């Protein structure tokens, strides 16, 4: 038996860093040792080859084990280093694996958190920006907080937030006195509540915050409606016996924390031109608005305010009242009683009417100048109180002031003959003075040419007409002019105009210094004497004055 035997391999699996000759060196060295030992046995002890090898192997021990140990001693550094590297690599791989798992789990957790956050933000964003907002529950009770539900109450929600749509929404309470506004975007809202039973209105504010639904509980007044009729009385005489009166009605009823007001705090519906009966001075009818309406107002203590202002034909009464013109108001406090017809009588004093005239003149001077073309002269001072077509003989009592109230009637006859003759009676006997006539638009629409106008019932001192040619003052001979107050004036139309301006700087009879600043001017177009084709246009009575506003 020799060593190593054929196909013997005492070594472990080859290592990648193992020197190529390591195994051969080990085997050769040990084999040489064993061979020498066996040869020694055969040479010195006379043993057979087999016995010698057996003896050598017996003395050597296990050569495979020695070979493995030598290989291990040579390779253990590299093997250990390899194991350490492998271990480190494995450990690193495990660490990386765990770190990766940790990162993935964290990412998943973060993604889930971000998804929740995004969902929350989206929900919050949606709550704050989209029209879909919060709920606003409103409950209305009658009389007191635990009173019966107020059904049919109309609630209007209007946004106050600047830059947003006004967002008016109106709902009515159900049989339970409840309503729900949804969705209500975040913002501040004005709530207006109309109670049809009491005819009163409540106005309050409400703020809606994002993410917070709110509820309001309101108490409506336990008040019934009362029928009321408004009667006005004004001191006569008054021009045309017609006057524009703006009527207000106000009142407050506190119910709990709520302050309710009549719905018609400023009801134009009862304002308008009142036709006063001359004999009585009373009027129950706003002529412009039709028959007198029976007002339905809450049966509480109310304050009526009548604001008399004079009418301007160019302005509708409603608009005049909405202008909130200054006036000397007549105030009447009345407690209305439900179940019966209440009559609210308001008496206008002469002073209030006179103030109305003054305010009207000032207002007209400031704002009611007719539109004019660029080639027309600027409007002149002067005030037209009223302009009325003269269809027939007009009798005018020109007693606008106490001074003129007792003035004897005066009759003015227009030039012409037959059916064309017009007669007007104007108050006379007093000193009149007139400064300006502004608007002649109502006199006529078109004057072809050479039409003359007659201005009478006054003493004309000087005048100028734009764009009409100034003509000399002359007295129409042969025409009755009973008052003998001044010469008539003829204007000649030089070109076609629809509107002309006439400046009459003085129109005085008697003592100008002591004269009241009021008067009557009769204007009428007249036909050209040599041109029978021209026909009369409707003459007009202009009530004019130069009375300056006392408090303006």
């Amino acid at each position, binding site marked *: 038996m020799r060593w190593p035997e054929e196909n013997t391999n005492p070594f472990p699996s080859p290592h990648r860093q193992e020197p190529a000759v390591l195994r051969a*060196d080990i085997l*050769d*060295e*040990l*084999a*040489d*040792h064993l*061979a*020498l*030992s066996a040869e*020694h046995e055969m040479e010195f002890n006379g043993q057979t080859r087999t016995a010698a090898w057996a003896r050598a192997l017996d*003395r*050597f*021990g*296990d*050569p495979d*084990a*020695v070979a493995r*140990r*030598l290989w291990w*001693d*040579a390779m253990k550094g590299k093997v250990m280093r390899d194991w350490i590297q492998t271990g480190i690599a494995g450990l690193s791989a495990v660490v990386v694996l765990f770190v990766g798992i940790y990162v993935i789990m964290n990412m998943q957790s973060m993604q889930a958190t971000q998804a929740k956050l995004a969902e929350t933000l989206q929900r919050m964003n949606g709550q704050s920006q989209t029209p879909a907002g919060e709920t606003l529950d409103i409950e209305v009770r009658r009389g007191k907080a635990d009173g019966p539900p107020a059904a049919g109450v109309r609630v209007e929600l209007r946004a106050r937030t600047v830059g947003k749509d006004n967002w008016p929404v109106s709902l009515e309470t159900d049989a339970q006195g409840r309503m729900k506004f949804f969705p209500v975007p975040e913002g501040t809202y004005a709530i207006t509540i109309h109670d049809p039973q009491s005819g009163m209105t409540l106005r309050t504010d409400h703020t809606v915050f994002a993410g917070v639904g709110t509820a309001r509980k309101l108490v409506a007044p336990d008040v019934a409606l009362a029928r009321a009729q408004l009667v006005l009385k004004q001191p006569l005489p008054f021009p045309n016996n017609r006057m524009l009166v703006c009527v207000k009605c106000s009142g407050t009823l506190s119910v709990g924390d709520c302050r309710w007001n009549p719905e018609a705090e400023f009801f134009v519906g009862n304002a308008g031109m009142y036709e006063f009966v001359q004999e009585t001075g009373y009027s129950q009818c706003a002529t412009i608005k039709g028959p007198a309406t029976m007002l339905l107002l809450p049966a509480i203590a109310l304050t009526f305010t009548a604001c008399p202002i004079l009418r301007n034909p160019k302005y509708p009464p409603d608009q005049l009242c909405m202008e909130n013109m200054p006036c000397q108001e007549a105030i009447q406090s009345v407690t209305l009683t439900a179940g019966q017809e209440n009559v609210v009588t308001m008496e206008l004093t002469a002073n209030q009417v006179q103030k109305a005239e003054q305010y009207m003149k000032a207002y007209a001077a400031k704002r009611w100048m007719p539109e004019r073309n660029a080639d027309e002269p600027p409007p002149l001072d002067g005030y037209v109180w009223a302009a009325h077509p003269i269809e027939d003989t007009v009798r005018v009592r020109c007693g606008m002031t106490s001074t003129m109230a007792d003035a004897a009637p005066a009759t003015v006859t227009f030039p012409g003959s037959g059916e064309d003759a017009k007669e007007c009676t104007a108050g006379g006997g007093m000193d009149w003075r007139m400064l300006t006539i502004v608007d002649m638009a109502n006199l006529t629409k078109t004057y072809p040419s050479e039409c003359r106008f007659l201005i009478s019932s006054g003493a004309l001192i000087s005048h100028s007409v734009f764009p009409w040619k100034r003509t000399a003052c002359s007295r129409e001979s042969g025409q009755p002019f009973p008052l003998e107050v001044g010469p008539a004036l003829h204007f000649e139309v030089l070109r076609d105009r629809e509107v002309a301006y006439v400046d009459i700087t003085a129109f005085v009879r008697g003592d100008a210094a002591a004269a009241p600043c009021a008067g009557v001017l009769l204007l009428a177009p007249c036909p050209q004497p040599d041109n029978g084709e021209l026909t009369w246009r409707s003459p007009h009575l202009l009530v004019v004055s130069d009375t300056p506003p006392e408090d303006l």
Partner: protein
Amino acid sequence: MDSQLLAGTLEMLVLQVVTSNPAYGYQITQEVLQRSKCYFELKEGSLYPALHRMEREGFLESYWVEAGPKRRRKYYRATPQGLAALEKKQAEWHRFSTAVNGVLGTPADALA
């Protein structure tokens, strides 16, 4: 012999053998056995790991010589580092043996 006593002196014996002339493994065992008058019988299981370790540590260097058909023989010889180590180990061993002999008696008696 006590193997623990041999383990502590194996490197010194091997270095001493290969100091004068290069020697291969079997030759070293026989030389040690002869010089020690058959007292130190080196086991191959201990000799070759020691030779390889001393070679890796730089005390020995080796080379191969063809010893016949398909047979190689590895010779070891001491390096300068190995000689220095041998000198150091010899001095230490002399101090140790002197001390031991001083306690036990004369070296001749001990060897006898």
